[in-house]
């Protein structure tokens, strides 16, 4: 049964919407008319330009109110459940405490000869990446950043010693596939030490993606633009699955 819905200002289906944007043109009657027509093209009738402000020599900022004509048929959406939003830092910490009752130990390093650490640090340290704070800020994680150029044997030793829950390694230099060699060496070492199944293993780097990492035996791979919050949410679910905790 079609159930269509339109915005509500102060009467059913009045379609009331507010819009704001800047047009790259000097303030003028022409600019205001352009803003009106622009909003009309968005399917908004009776556009009322309440503000036209010159905010830079060739830029005018507009606030426009109007009546949107579109309708949304809710019955068409109800089928696919809308995707849930990303968990916040507080929600992840609360969930770790609830499920595990302890902090999850996460080790990280740049492998073997690789000296690039900025990417890994942006995932690990307090300041994080452009405002998305690093794993150190999460009470739920005991994040230990082992730094640059760490041999695979050292990684295995630290995993055993710390009883780590997860290992995050970064590989940036890719000349003659050096990153593939290093990443594979680590998996082999962990399997040899019968540690592979006790940890969630994650690879990352400017030239790493999920497919490559899975292919090399990792649980996941993260490339450019990755933020700590995405990695934290993944670790919560993956470690829970790994350790049969829910």
């Amino acid at each position, binding site marked *: 049964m079609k159930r269509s819905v339109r915005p509500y200002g102060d009467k059913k289906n009045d379609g009331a919407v507010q819009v*704001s*944007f*800047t047009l790259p043109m000097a303030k003028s009657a022409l600019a205001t008319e352009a803003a009106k027509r622009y909003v009309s093209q968005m399917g908004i009738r009776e556009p009322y330009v309440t503000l036209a*402000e010159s*905010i*830079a*020599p060739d*830029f005018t*900022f507009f606030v426009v109110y109007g009546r949107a004509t579109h309708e949304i048929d809710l019955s068409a959406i109800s089928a696919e459940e809308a995707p849930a939003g990303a968990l916040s*830092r507080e929600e992840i910490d609360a969930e770790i405490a609830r499920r595990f009752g302890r902090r999850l130990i996460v080790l990280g390093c740049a492998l073997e000869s690789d000296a690039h*650490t*900025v990417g890994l*640090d*942006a995932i*690990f*340290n*307090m*300041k994080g*990446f*452009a*405002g998305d*704070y690093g794993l*150190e*800020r999460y009470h739920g994680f005991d994040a230990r*950043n082992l*730094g640059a150029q760490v041999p695979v044997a050292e990684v295995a030793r630290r995993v055993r010693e710390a009883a780590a829950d997860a290992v995050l390694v970064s590989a940036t230099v890719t000349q003659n596939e050096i990153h593939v060699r290093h990443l594979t060496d680590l998996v082999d070492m962990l399997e040899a030490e019968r540690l592979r199944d006790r940890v969630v293993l994650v690879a990352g780097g400017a030239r790493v993606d999920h497919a490559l990492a899975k292919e090399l035996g990792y649980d996941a791979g993260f490339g450019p633009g990755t933020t700590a919050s995405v990695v934290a949410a993944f670790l919560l679910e993956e470690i829970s699955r790994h350790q049969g905790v829910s």
Partner: protein
Amino acid sequence: MAASKLGLSAERIARCRSLAREVADGVRRETAKYTTVATERTVLRLLGVDGVDAEEVPIPNRAIESLAAAGKMNRGAAVWMGSALAHGSGGVAEAAARLADRKGAAALTEHPRWRDALLPHVEKGLERIRGNRAERERRLASHPPDERPLLYAIVATGNIHEDLVQAQAAARAGAQCIAVIRSTAQSLLDHVPYGATTSGFGGTYATQENFRLMRAALDSIEDELGRYVRLVNYCSGLCMPEIAAMGAFERLDMMLNDALYGIIFRDINPLRTLIDQNFSRRINAAAGVVINTGEDNYLTTADAVEQAPAVLASQFINERLAKDAGLEDWQIGLGHAFEIDPELEDGLLYEIAQAEAAREIFPDAPLKYMPPTKHMTGNVFRGYQQNALFVLTSVATGQSIHLLGMLTEALHTPFLHDRWLAVDQARTIRTNARHLSEELQFAPEGRIVRRARAVLAEAEALLERVAAGGLFAALADGVFADTRRRIDAGRGYEGVVERDAGYANPFLEAFTHAPAATGVHA
């Protein structure tokens, strides 16, 4: 100094300052024994060494790596540059190339008259810094005094050429300080990228060429605006003194310059960055630059009410370290922020208490007040409201530098109209509440006064704890922001080198003895 509104105990403030002095002395005792790769690279840059080699590695990095390999770094790059010149190198570039060559560096012997050979180049570097300082003071004196607090806007497109357009738009809209946000985590690079850059990570790389381009762009509209536009950048991190030197050479006006930030929030080795900080602050002092410190970072996730004492304690320590590095009061832009939960009962009273306390405890410091971030949401109307209360609190407590809050803080790097709305808001409220700070007084035993006293008392207790074991021990114990940072861990520790007996740094010597120039200041 305006009469105190909070009746804070002068004894307790003095006690905090003496504790901070103990902490600073402890730090100096430790740091004075060492130099670092960054400090020595800076000496080369001040002598005029620049450029990159075929693999785009900066020449200063090559030269210092080579000296280190030859076991010569402990005596300081200056000795070897002077010696190379005295041994016949034709000029600074040639001398640097000689140092950068592994065999050449190993073979080089100290020349008895290395100082004489080096003197003209030292003098040239110092003169460039003095010249920029005088130029800034001339320009400032040619306009009416700026309205306070100074409105500080941020641009961050990642492409320096696009930044120039946005920076001029922000300045025309009324911003008095423009900061180009650095490519995120540039703190962690142990070299400074070279030349103009067009792609960064959530920001634009700090490079000397980028500084030069932006300085020229802002100077070009100075007459049109009838005021000097201050340019800000970030020297915190592994290249602290190097970027400070570049700023001094390109007439930057303000620098984020805080080792405690690098230690706690970028996991940089405490010893390394405190050694570097001293030299960087010496350079900023000479250049007439206003430094900004990063105490706002304590408040961006942890609770802003609980962390207030840590902010104040950090400010006392930063003040002392800055003065020990020759910075005058008017140059020490201590940081704090408006980050209390807007839903907290009387939270605004605590913001006023804390901002007023900073004003009264550091009366001559150009306090830098940072906008709300933690409690900003997708409700951009609520965002604009909180920034209005932030501006009013800033004006009501006489803050000096006001970093403009964006209504879209939680969403994206600012759109052109986000920034215009922020400047319009700050200018309007600054005028509408112009003399509010002269008007306001607080109930003697009221909540505001009691809050300020409590924060001061807790800050003192924190300083007692830090002074007891020294700053390095306190950092290892996680005293600040519950984050443990050991003296022998973190980025850049390998770059720390003990000075040997014959160590020399002519710039450090010059900055330490020369009386700072007086005159109009920022």
